[in-house]
């Protein structure tokens, strides 16, 4: 009995000896065979992996109803019940692709992005600081990208036929009002912000998101770093400046704080490198900054960044309107900028980003009309000369707040909406030669609301649709600006995108207050882009058309140019190429950009529709980087070429009662070759207590005589070129990090 039973049980146990063959083909939703897909019977060992034609076949000893499952990263898991009886089963499967960040098309029309995220990008944050011509200035690096002009006499980005005022900069979502150091006549200024505090840079030459406004041409969107990797102390010494900084990361790695201070004094530099202006106050700059960053939860981050800068400069230059007389210009600037931002997930797929910035800017500008002995002269005939003696105090205070609420939808789709508030108060006190004073105040309260949605239909097709509405208290006007971008990915992973958008902007503050009722200026962008991006090579081509409407026109009253109406207009069209290659030449990384621009506009005091003086037809840049391991040195070079720009002598013709061009011409072509060397002597010394980088750079190595534009005297009889203050500029500096061995980090940053 017992034996029988035992035998029976054994029989039951081993009854499933019959084998079933399961086979088929796995394809994606485009009927392309999928290689390497795992297919199996759920909860068994039985299964296999598809071959290059998507075929699979395996044998199982299981019986009865089982679940066949197929899974692969980036695809929706597949499951199907099958009945196993010993008869071969064929199951052909079509896997549905999931929309994932790694695979999805990128909406990139108009945009260059440099960030650390996983996705391959055109640029990396490190590229910005190692571009030879940039000297660690963010906008100077951006100027090697297509769409930008090589304007050297004024700071800012001139993008696709737009003025510098049409480009705005945002840090952690909020507008920055005084991104550059205060203007000096004929000298472009650097940005105030240290490029090392930013981990992400997005440069948009048009068609950007509804989250940003008040910029007709371009947005430069900067994102500050989160917690530092480790604590550090830094020292920077050059013949221009000394600086020191400290970054302290808490033991639990949940918060950090830092401070730094820099002192710049160009005395030595200007002794060694002769400057065209005669400096009686050689530029002196004090810069201090402080930050803290706190991880408020697993997903939350609170960041504070504040800077203080004080600068003083004074120089004399030959007066245009007289013989042998000079203008003595003096500027004192005090700027405080503070930014607080907070990001947090608020559950159920909702996310909030809030930013708040507060800044004040004070400029104290004075000008004196001086004789050859540098003595102040008040000449009242002609009256024009008397007005060359003046004092201007400007006080600006700015508050910018922004909140964005985002809801993650299926796949990568998302819905975003929010509000922005920009307050500015610009007060100007003039003191004329005779002591007469006048005060002007321009106050703006700009309230905006925006909504935007990202729609990913598949990995290959996506759209961003948004709209922005703004109300200006200054103009007492509303505007509504729709924005649409579409992107499509081809089978070879290249992609095409298009963008359309309307952009509005207030009149430039320096032409206000106006006695007339003004409206927003308006630009409409149309962009088409093709991009092929892989790890080692990037190609992109972009075509654009930009239509300007309601640009403001100016008129001169009592020596001051003020906005009078919105009758200006214009357009800009062109195409641009960008090519980056890290592969063809071993150890060499280079990029080339080319821009063609055809633009005309009638604005400010232009008598008619004409090519603006800040626009060159052809602009090209070449940037090359190479690290030589044996020498522990990185060599960087960059070359920029631009065809000549038009210049005009526009004056009011009293007889005709309008503005007229009395003289015009084109500057000669612009050429600039720059070179920099970074030497890292401590590299590879493990356990080194300090890490050193020595930087040497030369701008305009060839000493090309560049002319940016021409200035005319009041009567048009005297014409002078506006040139860089020195032919070449040299920089030599040393950066030392103490206490922490960052050797390996830096090595690999440079060589791998």
């Amino acid at each position, binding site marked *: 009995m017992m034996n029988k039973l035992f035998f029976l049980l054994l029989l039951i*146990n081993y009854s499933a000896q019959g084998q079933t063959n399961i086979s088929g083909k796995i394809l994606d939703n485009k009927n392309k065979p999928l290689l390497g897909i795992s297919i199996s019977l759920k909860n068994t060992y039985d299964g296999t*992996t598809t071959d290059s034609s998507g075929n699979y076949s395996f044998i199982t000893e299981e019986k009865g109803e089982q679940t066949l499952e197929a899974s692969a990263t980036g695809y929706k898991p597949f499951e199907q019940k099958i009945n196993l009886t010993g008869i071969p089963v064929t199951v052909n499967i079509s896997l549905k692709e999931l929309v994932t960040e*790694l695979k999805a098309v990128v909406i990139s029309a108009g945009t260059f992005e440099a960030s650390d995220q996983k996705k391959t990008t055109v640029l990396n944050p*490190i590229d910005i600081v190692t571009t030879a011509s940039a000297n660690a200035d963010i906008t100077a690096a951006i100027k090697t990208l297509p769409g930008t002009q090589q304007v050297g006499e004024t700071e800012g980005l001139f993008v696709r036929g737009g003025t510098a005022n049409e480009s705005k900069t945002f840090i952690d979502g909020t507008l920055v009002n005084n991104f550059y150091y205060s203007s000096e006549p004929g000298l472009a200024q650097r940005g105030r912000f240290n490029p090392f505090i930013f981990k992400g840079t997005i440069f948009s030459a048009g068609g950007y998101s509804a989250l940003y406004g008040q910029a007709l041409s371009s947005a430069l969107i900067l994102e500050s770093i989160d917690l530092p990797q480790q604590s550090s102390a830094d020292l920077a010494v050059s013949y221009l400046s000394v600086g020191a900084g400290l970054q302290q990361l808490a033991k639990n790695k949940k918060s950090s704080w830092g401070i730094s201070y820099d002192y710049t004094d160009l005395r030595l530099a200007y002794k060694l490198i002769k400057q065209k202006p005669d400096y009686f106050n050689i530029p002196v700059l004090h810069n201090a900054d402080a930050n803290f960053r706190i991880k408020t939860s697993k997903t939350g981050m609170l960041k504070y960044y504040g800077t203080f800068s004080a600068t003083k400069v004074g120089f004399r230059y030959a007066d245009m309107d007289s013989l042998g007389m000079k203008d003595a210009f003096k500027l004192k600037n005090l700027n405080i900028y503070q930014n607080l931002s907070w990001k947090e997930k608020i559950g159920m797929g909702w996310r909030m980003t809030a930013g708040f910035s507060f800044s004040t800017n004070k400029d104290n500008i004075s000008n004196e009309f001086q004789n050859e002995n540098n003595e102040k002269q008040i000449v009242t005939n002609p009256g024009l000369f008397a007005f060359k003696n003046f004092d201007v105090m400007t006080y600006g205070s700015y508050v910018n707040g922004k909140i964005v609420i985002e809801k993650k939808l299926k796949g990568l789709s998302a819905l975003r909406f929010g509000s922005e508030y920009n307050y500015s108060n610009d007060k100007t006190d003039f003191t004329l030669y005779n002591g007469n004073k006048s005060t002007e105040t321009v106050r703006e309260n700009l309230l905006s609301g925006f909504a935007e949605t990202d729609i990913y239909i598949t990995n290959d097709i996506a759209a961003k649709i948004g709209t922005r509405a703004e109300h200006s208290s200054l103009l007492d006007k509303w505007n509504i600006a729709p924005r649409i971008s579409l992107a499509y990915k081809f089978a070879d992973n290249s992609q095409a995108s298009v963008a359309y958008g309307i952009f509005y902007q207030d009149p430039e503050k320096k032409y206000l207050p106006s006695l007339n009722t003004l409206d927003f200026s308006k630009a409409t962008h149309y962009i088409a882009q093709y991009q092929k991006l892989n790890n080692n090579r990037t190609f992109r081509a972009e075509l654009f058309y930009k239509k300007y409407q309601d640009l403001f026109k100016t008129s001169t009253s009592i020596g001051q140019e003020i906005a009078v109406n919105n009758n200006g207009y214009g357009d800009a069209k062109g195409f641009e190429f960008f090519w980056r290659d890290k592969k063809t030449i071993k150890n060499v990384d280079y990029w080339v950009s080319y821009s063609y621009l055809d633009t005309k506009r009638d604005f400010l005091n232009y008598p008619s529709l004409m090519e603006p003086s800040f626009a060159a037809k052809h602009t090209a840049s070449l940037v090359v980087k190479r690290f030589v*391991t044996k020498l522990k040195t990185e060599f960087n070079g960059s070359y920029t070429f631009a065809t000549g720009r038009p210049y005009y002598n526009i004056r009011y013709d009293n007889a005709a009662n309008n503005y007229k061009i009395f003289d015009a011409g084109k500057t000669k072509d612009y050429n600039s070759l720059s070179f920099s060397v970074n030497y890292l002597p401590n590299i590879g010394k493990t356990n080194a207590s300090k890490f050193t980088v020595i930087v040497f750079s030369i701008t305009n190595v060839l000493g090309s005589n560049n002319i940016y534009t021409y200035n005319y005297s009041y009567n048009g009889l005297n014409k002078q070129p506006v040139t860089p203050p020195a032919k070449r500029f040299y920089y030599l500096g040393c950066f030392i990090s103490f206490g922490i061995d960052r050797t390996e980090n830096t090595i690999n940053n440079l060589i791998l």
Partner: protein
Amino acid sequence: MKKTILSATIICLCITAFAQSDKYAGAMKKNISMLDSAMQKGNAKELANNFERIGDAEKSQWLPYYYAAYCNVISTYTEKDKTKNDAIADKAEELIIKAEGLAGKENSEIAVIKSMIASAHMMVDPQSRYMQYGATSASNIEKAKALDPSNPRPVYLEGQAKLYTPEAFGGGKDVAKPLFEKALAMFDAFKPASELHPTWGKSATQYFLAQASK
């Protein structure tokens, strides 16, 4: 009679259970034996899937997921398009986290895989990714050494990293060679906890030692 049935049932269950664990060990051994040739054959992805299936079916064993993660990572070595590394490394990461959960805590072998995962991410764009992934990779090697000083694999990985670091930066053959020699000696002395526990790396160490000795 009842007793008889009961004992018979128990015997049967035992046989089944034994057969089951025998099946596990058998399947694991079979796949483990194919690890060394996976690089030449280019079937690491297939092996990864095999191990993952075993892991999914067993539900309580950490080693199948450990090997699945390992196979995914080494499949990136032969992948020409490095941009695919991220997706594969993410998959490996998912698997090693499962393995760590089942093992109850992190161990030296798991730290080794984490180091390799970070390196795979780094290879996509070493220049800009070193800051993040290079540091993670190096710290996991150190962790692996600390968790089990007798484990030769972190020493082998360190040697490999040094071999590909230029001499000027403290790498090179002369620095790597003693590490491979040390790893090789450790491989000879290494006793895995069971037949199924990791033993891989010896032949690779020999290969790299030969390279470093050239």
